């Protein structure tokens, strides 16, 4: 489908139209923080944000979700699977977060297909927005992600000043755009030409990290003393894992409050928690912070590559901004290059 453009003052109308036949998830301000939330219309949706604090992975892999419920008074003891989600549109995902969804696909849509994830994934149309600016903590370029491309999204918008460039990337995207084709104008080529200039600041101003050779070094650094030093300051909270767009470890717990009805849910768990790897019988393969800190960086930068062929980090910078003790993945990567 040919590229289109939409005037900025029409975006709210577009969102209103989307909200009529889909659940719309878009970035809004909550107590001064930008978060992706379901909204009823385009009212209140923010467009001048850098990125949401919590990544939209929450809408594919929620922090907690019910899996099924049971009622033992039911003579058939039937298990009632959790309901799926309605058709929905995720609006405003940045290229780094879009890449993270592709990475999560590798985990949840592989030899074992995770139905809970896939239900949400298949029913969601992703409308991404390119980055014109970046945060001081961004470094998506290190992992081959461009602020102006969003492979994995269905539609990509780029802010060109008074209008957005609208590129349909998939058939799903084309179908979505058909709902408000009256708001779209064909791009005569000038929009596409202006895109490169529009996203240039995001490419230039972000942290530049060269990942060349890092994986190879990490392959031989399991016993390197740097993990003992760097991990000393970690406080073992789950901040980095919970704000990370690619982290996906979870726990499965049953809930029953002394009644005949109960349910099983899964919830995000963090490899940084002390009890994460504690097994029945008390054995603890990651007994100290050293093992757990090492695990975090190895998983993102080495094991994920071994298993899925791609780095598990997208350079969004949330973890290093929010870590209370300044455990900075960019600094770790530079250290690995230096001492590995």
């Amino acid at each position, binding site marked *: 489908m040919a590229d289109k453009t939409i005037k900025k003052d029409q975006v709210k109308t577009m969102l209103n139209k989307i909200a009529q036949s889909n659940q719309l998830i878009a970035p809004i301000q*909550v*107590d*001064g*923080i930008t*978060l992706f939330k379901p909204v009823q219309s385009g009212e209140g949706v923010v467009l001048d944000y850098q990125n949401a*604090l*919590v990544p939209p992975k929450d809408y594919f892999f929620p*922090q*907690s979700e019910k899996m099924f419920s049971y009622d033992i008074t039911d003579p058939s003891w039937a298990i009632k699977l959790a309901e799926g989600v309605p058709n929905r549109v995720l609006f405003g995902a940045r290229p780094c977060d879009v890449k993270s969804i592709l990475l999560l696909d590798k985990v949840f849509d592989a030899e074992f297909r995770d139905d809970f994830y896939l239900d949400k994934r298949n029913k969601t149309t992703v409308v991404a927005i390119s980055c014109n600016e970046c945060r*001081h903590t961004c470094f998506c370029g290190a992992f081959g992600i461009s602020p102006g491309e969003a492979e994995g999204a269905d539609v990509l918008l780029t802010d060109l000043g008074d209008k957005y460039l609208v590129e349909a990337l998939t058939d799903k995207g084309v179908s979505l755009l058909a709902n408000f084709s009256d708001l779209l104008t064909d791009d005569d080529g000038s929009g596409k030409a202006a895109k490169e200039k529009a996203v240039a600041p995001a490419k230039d101003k972000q*942290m530049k990290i060269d990942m060349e050779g890092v994986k190879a070094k990490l392959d031989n650094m399991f016993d390197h003393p740097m993990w003992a*030093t760097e991990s*000393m*300051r970690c*406080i*073992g*909270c*789950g*901040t980095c894992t*919970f*704000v990370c767009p690619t982290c996906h470890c979870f*726990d499965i*717990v049953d*809930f029953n409050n002394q009644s005949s009805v109960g349910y099983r*849910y899964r*919830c*995000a*768990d*963090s490899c940084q*928690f*002390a*009890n994460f790897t504690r097994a029945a019988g008390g054995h603890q393969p990651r007994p100290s912070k050293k093992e757990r800190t090492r695990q975090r960086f190895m998983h993102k930068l080495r094991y994920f590559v071994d298993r899925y062929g791609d780095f598990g980090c997208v350079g969004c910078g949330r973890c*290093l901004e*929010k870590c*209370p*003790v*300044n*455990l*900075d993945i*960019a*600094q770790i990567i530079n250290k690995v290059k230096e001492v590995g």
Partner: protein
Amino acid sequence: MNKVTENLRKTAAKLLQDKEVEMVIGYGLGSEAVRTQPVFITSPEDTEKLVWNSFCVNGLTKYLSDLKTHPGKLAVVVKGCDSRGIFRLTQDNIIPRDKIVVIGIPCAGQLSYTKLASKMDVSGQLNDVEEKGDDVVIKTTKGDFTVKKSEVLLDKCNTCEHHNPVVADHVVGDAINASPTPDSYDEIKKYEAMSTEEKAKFWLSQFERCIRCYACRNICPGCTCRECIFDAIKPDWVGKEIDVSENELFHLTRAFHLAGRCVDCGECDRVCPMDIPIRLLNKKLLKECKELFNMETPGSVEEGGSVIGQYRLEDPEEFM
């Protein structure tokens, strides 16, 4: 390099050289110009890593709890607010007082990373920082920036009770004679004055945001239970499910477990990634305990303990 940093390094080096301590826990330069990170120095040569500047926001006393079985003594760098955490740990018998060597640094206020990031380019490395009256001049590899101190000060520093540490075996800076500005709890009173519905709406919106990362619990010198109630699965006191009712239970329970013990170091508030105003909960209980039990901020003196855990004849008896 400022005089305090010089004294700090000298003191730390001597402590390590004389083998008086096995480790010095202090601040080192961070990965961005306006951040510092906790460093753990074990040899005199490495004391070059220690710094003191306006970005030393972390509270380091909690590490003493993790390292309590470390052989030998531990030295730790504390500001006024952190120093109360030392007494919290010793009063709770987490670590004996004679295992700690306290290096105290009088502090005139620390600057907030988030506030600074909105006013200047914080990437790059720090060259120097100078306070010139109301202004702070921050010189980095990405340029020099001048900001107004009052606009970037950590909120908690506006009501500082102890500029000078309440305990120190070595003091490496000049004592600050500015009178403390203890909290008159005006902010808390504002929240107390809200109607029941407004309060419920406000707090539920805060609890809904919680992602149960437990950063607040892990950084707190008062949270030292061997098995935290929130980690226990048998019995399952608080479910792992992340929804507003479990989150509310977490915050209220933690606040209550700290009632009468919280030393008001403000770290829980700073570390929260979701900007939940945890200090509003802890300070509320601090205010109540001060009024009910006529106590000082916990950790201000060496003797003491939880007022709620002790019985005195003069305790109020509203419930009789």
